[in-house]
């Protein structure tokens, strides 16, 4: 049982590191003459840092990486079968699946928290939990879901598919890639430990001065999210270098699959903006543990500084979440409509346009914050401009579907649902971008409904499209199509019932992040709660289907979707080095309906892209 030993040993080292860190700081504090050597939050910081290092050394970084710095020989142990998912494995396919499974688990946990919240919110008055428990559950739900949204598609689908789609043998920095995944478990542990220190009281946005004066769970929150930001930056860096330098011969920028394009743009967003979250939380950390005064108004600080720095990251973060979702949806739509991606260049232009605009829209989250009045106009204009590139994504999706030969398998249904949901999320965004309507709607359930439409409807639906799309490739087995369609319709209807209804209490006067509300909103909230539970239950079908299919599903073909991109031209699952030989790219990936066109070839072993004209071609 190498896998168990590996994880348990690393966790043990992490615990030892944690207590060492606590003690180390305590000794330092005692030596420097502080009265209470053990009582400071800085002890937790020391413990976390030491614990993190211990965990990483234990999980395998020492053997495969750090030894090199001291001029020693490195090694990686190869664990057989499923056990490789529990080791510091550098194979991008393993890391992609590690990410996906981890974040599905986190997604379900955070979803359970949401169900708990909806139970409390089913009617006015306090029934099941206290205000403090509600706030803790809400904060945890928020930040866990943000983590899922940031990392599940990028880390999971991106890691798995990008090297395959561009014809590379792995990512540019495989060890760095493994590091980005193995930084996640400490983040999860720290976040899940927050209830023991009083629970997150500040929501995921952590506005000061509340966050600088609240309970110590804020420290764990800050440390976890700074670590998480680090994984996001390192992951983005790895994707950019991989996509620039490791494309197969002939894979020009104009032939890049659209999902890879979206990952490329997203990675730039990640490495540029994520520092904003890190800086904002670092400032809170310093205010708390070092007695600094960034956000204390009496001492010359300014709480608004936090909001600026925070949203400087956190608005682009929604594009980090949703752009890979768009890319994935367009990718699936093209293959399942059996048509070239409509207006490919415009779609790429849309991604680049969003990349360019994303950095100048952040203050639309602060229209009511009391920032100086001259800031509202420019941010309103920039925010409305974002809808133009977003419109091009719709052009591309709808144009591809039109007159196509739509093969309505589950991935396609989810991809079409992305477009459907985002139409609603996009239109409600206009109400929030225009200041005159935003004043009333800001911080109400209208906003909650809006961003669930964009992030869940846009990205999480795309994540499920991706999971169903690549499931046969990842596992070599096929899921049950009937159950998958049941899951889709159940989730789609539950989702739209829940979140479309949720707009109404917002307009009617229900503010967000509350455990209680005026009884005049009882009926609407009951409806939302019932639909929310309906939505929640749909994931039981998904879980059953996935687990069952992975264990005893029928063996999948190499190319069950008759798709042209490179990942389908190798076996399911692909071998360690991905392809039998280096593929050479000869044409566009989406040239369905163009006789004689090929996407890629293996010079010594035949066709790689499906010969088009006949849809049956898998190149096998």
């Amino acid at each position, binding site marked *: 049982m*190498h896998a168990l030993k590996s994880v348990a040993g690393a966790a043990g080292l992490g615990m030892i590191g944690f207590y060492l860190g606590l003690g180390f700081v305590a000794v330092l504090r005692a030596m420097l003459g502080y009265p209470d050597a053990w009582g400071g939050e800085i002890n937790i910081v020391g413990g976390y840092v030491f614990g993190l290092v211990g965990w990483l050394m234990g999980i395998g970084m020492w053997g*495969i990486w750090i030894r090199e*710095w*001291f*001029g020693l020989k*490195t*090694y*990686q*142990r*190869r*664990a057989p079968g499923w056990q490789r998912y529990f080791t510091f494995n*550098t*194979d991008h396919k393993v890391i992609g699946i590690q990410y996906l499974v981890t974040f599905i688990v986190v997604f379900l946990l955070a979803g359970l928290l949401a169900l708990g919240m909806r139970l409390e919110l089913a009617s006015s008055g306090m029934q099941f939990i206290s205000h403090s428990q509600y706030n803790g559950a809400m904060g945890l739900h928020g930040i866990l879901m943000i983590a899922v949204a940031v990392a599940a598609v990028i880390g999971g689908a991106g890691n798995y598919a990008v090297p395959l789609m561009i014809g590379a*043998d*792995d990512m*540019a*920095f*495989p*060890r760095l890639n493994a590091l980005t995944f193995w930084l996640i478990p400490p983040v999860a542990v720290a976040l899940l430990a927050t209830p023991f220190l009083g629970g997150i009281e500040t929501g995921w946005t952590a506005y000061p001065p509340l966050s600088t004066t609240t309970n110590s769970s804020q420290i764990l929150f800050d440390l976890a999210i700074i670590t998480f930001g680090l994984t996001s*930056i390192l992951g983005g*860096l*790895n994707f*950019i*270098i991989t996509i*620039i*330098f490791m494309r197969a011969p002939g894979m020009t920028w104009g032939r890049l699959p659209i999902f890879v394009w979206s990952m490329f743009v997203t990675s730039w967003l990640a*490495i*540029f*903006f*994520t*520092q*904003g979250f*890190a*800086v904002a939380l670092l*400032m809170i950390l*310093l205010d708390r543990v*070092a*007695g*600094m*005064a*960034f956000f*204390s108004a009496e*001492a*010359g*600080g*300014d709480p608004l*500084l936090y909001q*600026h*720095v925070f949203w*400087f990251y956190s608005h682009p973060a929604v594009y980090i979440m949703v752009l890979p979702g768009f890319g994935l949806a367009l990718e699936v739509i093209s293959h399942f409509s059996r048509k070239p991606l409509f207006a490919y260049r415009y779609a790429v232009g849309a991604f680049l346009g969003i990349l360019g605009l994303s950095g100048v829209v952040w203050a639309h989250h602060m229209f009511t914050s009391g920032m100086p009045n001259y800031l509202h106009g420019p941010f309103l204009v920039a925010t409305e401009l974002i809808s133009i590139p977003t419109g091009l994504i719709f052009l591309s999706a709808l144009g591809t579907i039109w007159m196509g030969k739509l093969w309505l398998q589950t991935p396609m249904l989810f991809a079409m649902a992305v477009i459907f949901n985002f139409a609603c999320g996009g239109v409600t965004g206009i109400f929030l971008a225009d200041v005159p309507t935003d004043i009333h709607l800001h911080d109400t359930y209208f906003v909650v409904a809006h961003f669930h439409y964009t992030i869940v409807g846009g990205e999480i639906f795309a994540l499920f499209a991706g999971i169903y799309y690549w499931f046969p490739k990842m596992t070599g087995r096929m899921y049950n199509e009937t159950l998958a369609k049941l899951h889709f319709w159940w989730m789609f209807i539950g989702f739209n019932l829940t979140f479309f209804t949720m707009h109404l209490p917002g307009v009617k006067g229900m503010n967000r992040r509350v455990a209680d509300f005026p009884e005049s909103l009882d009926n609407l909230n009951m409806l939302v709660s019932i639909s929310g539970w309906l939505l929640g239950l749909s994931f039981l079908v998904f879980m059953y289907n996935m687990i069952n299919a992975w264990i005893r599903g029928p063996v999948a073909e190499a190319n069950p979707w008759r798709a042209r991109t490179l990942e389908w031209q190798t076996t399911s699952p692909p071998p360690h*080095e991905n392809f039998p030989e280096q593929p050479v790219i000869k044409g566009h990936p989406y040239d369905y309906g163009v006789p004689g066109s090929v996407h890629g070839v293996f010079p010594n072993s035949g066709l790689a892209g499906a010969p088009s004209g006949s849809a049956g071609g898998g190149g096998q």
Partner: protein
Amino acid sequence: MAVIAPAEAHRPVHDHLKLNRAGLWLFFFSESVLFGLLLTARFYLEGIQREELDQLLGLGITIVLLLSSVTAFTAETAIEHDNRKLANWGLIATIALGVLFAAGVGYEWSIAHFHRDEAFGTLFFTMTGIHASHVISGIGILVLVWVQLLRGRYTSRDHWPIAGAVMYWHFVDVVWVFFYPALYLVN
């Protein structure tokens, strides 16, 4: 239990160099956002106001850091031409100057007449502190590289660790090029 190497182990050396170099530059790109935001916060909170600081000390540590960049440059140029002796002395001088700079910042901290719970103090200690943490990690990296140099690990063809460490060192210098006037010279 077989022992395997990651995919990168099979790639040609100059592929490594290309990827590593571009990756390091991207890392600098990301880090410069961190420092840029700190600079922005400094001007957001305090405008161009500042507290009195020891000007000669400030100029002194700036010159020291600049000199260390020159010695680091010397070390890299030397190893590019297989001159290990000069590279050795270059690295030693860089490490020594780096320690001197860190000590200078520490001394500045101890004599500062403002406190960290007021706005300028907050900014000054945070900015110099985060910069100094990069200096100290840079020293650590240089020491690791220096030990490998003493063991005869590097040649003119294969010396990425030296080149990378030196690039990192220069980057830390570039950051100080902006921090120094923002903290010491404005107003």
